[in-house]
């Protein structure tokens, strides 16, 4: 079956512009996660959704970052007024449930470059 998909695969933007990153989870997976992978920082958890709600947003690095999920499926991560330090690979993952025993399946990521 289809895995987690993300779009775009690459995004180059200018400092100060807004960007939207999209994640399509595996069908039927109720939990969805966003991570950021940057050089020197490793993999950083950003936010997770159970259904359409995000119980904990404290992983988001600043108030320029927001995310939503509609219909318990597709999620978008929005970064407003992008800065150069936002350059990273943004990874999305989904799992059947948020239980710690459930495997998270990762998408290929969106590589964001802020000039």
């Amino acid at each position, binding site marked *: 079956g289809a895995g987690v998909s993300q779009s775009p695969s690459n995004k180059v933007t200018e400092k100060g512009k807004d960007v939207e990153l999209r994640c399509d989870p595996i069908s039927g997976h109720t939990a969805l996660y966003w991570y950021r992978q940057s050089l020197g920082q490793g993999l950083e*958890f950003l936010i*997770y959704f159970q259904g359409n709600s995000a119980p904990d947003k*404290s992983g988001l690095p600043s108030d320029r970052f927001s995310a939503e999920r509609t219909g318990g499926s597709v999620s978008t991560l929005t970064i407003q007024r992008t800065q150069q330090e936002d350059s990273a690979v943004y990874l999305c993952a989904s799992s059947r449930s948020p*239980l*710690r*025993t459930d495997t998270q399946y990762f998408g*290929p990521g969106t590589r964001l470059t802020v000039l």
Partner: protein
Amino acid sequence: AQSVTQLDSHVSVSEGTPVLLRCNYSSSYSPSLFWYVQHPNKGLQLLLKYTSAATLVKGINGFEAEFKKSETSFHLTKPSAHMSDAAEYFCVVSVAGGGADGLTFGKGTHLIIQP
């Protein structure tokens, strides 16, 4: 809160020799532990996971890991390295059901295979 320490940032072995990637964790609760692999320009792929069943866990591609509670370790091993094993490996701990404390990644170990 939990944490993961991958003791080596780089490991280099010759093809056909054993692989050992070390991981120590700390957690206040009974954790689930995972190893993920990331090949260049590819997404994260689950190698194996421990979820409080058998302490010796077998994964894909001949990898296995042993959960040792007394040593708080979850080292990844493979008897004989193959060139295709060259990649970045992440040790991951999951405690709560999702949320900001739910999933913590180690910094990664870059595995180099010498011909």
